[in-house]
């Protein structure tokens, strides 16, 4: 709970590398000790990844999944944030929709997915809709907490100076929601990817979820891990090249 002196960029990179190396080592060690198909070695997974990358199959499935994840993510974040701000800002709306929200949160993915597929057909639009519908309530809940915690004294400044609504939103309101939005985006991306897996399992002819199921049928954990890691690598890249720089820019004032 105390602030430490800052880390240089180089030191940060070294730390990240060390963490990665340690993880690899732990995994490898464990895999060798256990010596079971349930935990293949990094080498086995890498080999599988490589084979699928070369054959092009990896890219096809990864691409399909990423497209679905991206579309659902954008929809869920936009809609969820808007609703969250509304509910957090108005006690009346909040009380009214609170029960709906709890229901929305707790409807199993399976139900939304089935309903979307049955109503809108076995297509990507239905898939994306189902995933977004699953994620929106959790964005709402997080953003709503943020909106409730917004500093009223600072809002009063904007009111007193009659700051126009859009500017008030972007420069007074949203900056306070940022930690909540980042939390929501990070856990959201992972949740969405997990739901996309289920959606693909139940009714898409491609994507990692589809592929994973085939691996799973044959208990091919190396294959499962290979595709999982391929997706994780993408998320790590998004973290490093999008979320972290954004965070540095937007939340740099806290440093």
């Amino acid at each position, binding site marked *: 709970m105390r602030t430490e002196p800052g880390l240089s960029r180089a030191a940060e990179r070294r730390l990240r590398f060390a963490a990665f190396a340690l993880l690899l080592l732990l995994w490898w060690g464990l895999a060798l000790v256990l010596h079971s198909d349930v935990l293949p070695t990094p080498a086995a997974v890498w080999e599988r990844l490589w084979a699928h990358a070369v054959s092009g199959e990896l890219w096809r499935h990864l691409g399909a999944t990423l497209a679905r994840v991206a579309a659902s993510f954008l929809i869920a974040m936009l809609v969820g944030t808007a609703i969250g701000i509304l509910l957090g800002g108005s006690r009346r709306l909040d009380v009214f929709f609170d029960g709906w929200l709890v229901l929305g949160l707790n409807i199993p993915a399976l139900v939304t997915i089935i309903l979307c597929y049955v109503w809108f057909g076995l297509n990507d639009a239905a898939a994306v809709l189902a995933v977004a519908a699953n994620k929106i309530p959790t964005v709402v809940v997080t953003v709503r907490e943020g909106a409730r915690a917004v500093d009223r*004294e*600072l809002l*009063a*400044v*904007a*009111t*007193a*100076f*009659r*700051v126009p609504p859009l*500017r008030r939103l972007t*420069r*007074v309101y949203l*900056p306070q929601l940022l930690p909540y939005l980042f939390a929501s985006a990070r856990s959201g991306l992972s949740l969405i990817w997990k739901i996309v897996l289920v959606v693909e399992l139940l009714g898409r002819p491609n994507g990692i979820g589809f592929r994973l199921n085939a691996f799973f049928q044959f208990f091919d954990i190396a294959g499962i891990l290979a595709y999982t890691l391929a997706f994780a690598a993408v998320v790590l890249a998004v973290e490093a090249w999008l979320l972290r720089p954004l965070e540095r820019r*937007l*939340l740099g*004032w806290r440093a």
Partner: protein
Amino acid sequence: MSGGGLSVELQAKYWPGSDVPVLAGLRLDVAAGEFLCLVGPSGCGKSTLLAAIAGLDADFLGRIDAPPERGMLFQTPRLMPWLTVRDNLALVLADGRCSPAAEALLDAMEIPPALLDRYPGQLSGGQQRRVALARAFAVRPRLLLLDEPFVSLDAPVAQRLRELLLEHWMRERPTVLFVTHDLDEALALGDRIVFLGGRPAGIVLELVLSEPRPRAPEAVWRLRRQLLSTHPELLSGRVIPDPETPRP
């Protein structure tokens, strides 16, 4: 009421859960361009009144007419911590950009250009207060609400800022509501001083000052002596009354 003047008819302002209003029976008319000082004990309701006038709190009985073009200095600086000094000013300006005029204002407040790209958290208390003051001036308001603007500043800077405020007021002629605990400051600046007091608080005394500004220290001192002779209670407890009038 129109044209920058202010009319307050506050029958009562209650805080939730309290039976006694903080403010009651308060009638105040301020002419356009008037410089009004508000003085009263801590906790009597000065900031509450300012918030009501600024339209930040509509939960009172009564009616307030105030021009919409407001500049306000809150009792605490209330800068957006995530905006640089420059962007804090830009936030309230009409076109959303920090104009050269606004930067000149910061300069006049003795905020060197090097501080323009700093965040409020990297400023000293007095620097933050000056930025907040510049923000209130920068919008060139018709109504300027100032809640103890010159505390937390060293004497020379405070004095220069008082002069700046007077210049600004004489040039632009906004209606000014100036809350202060420093009677001398009120006497040096105002067209009129309104003393608040009592429970619930209301106006206990009004003093019209017709001397031209800037007022020389001697003039202020004379006013203070006059006032003290008729209302000795107002100055009780000041560390430095002028030497001729030792404290009771």
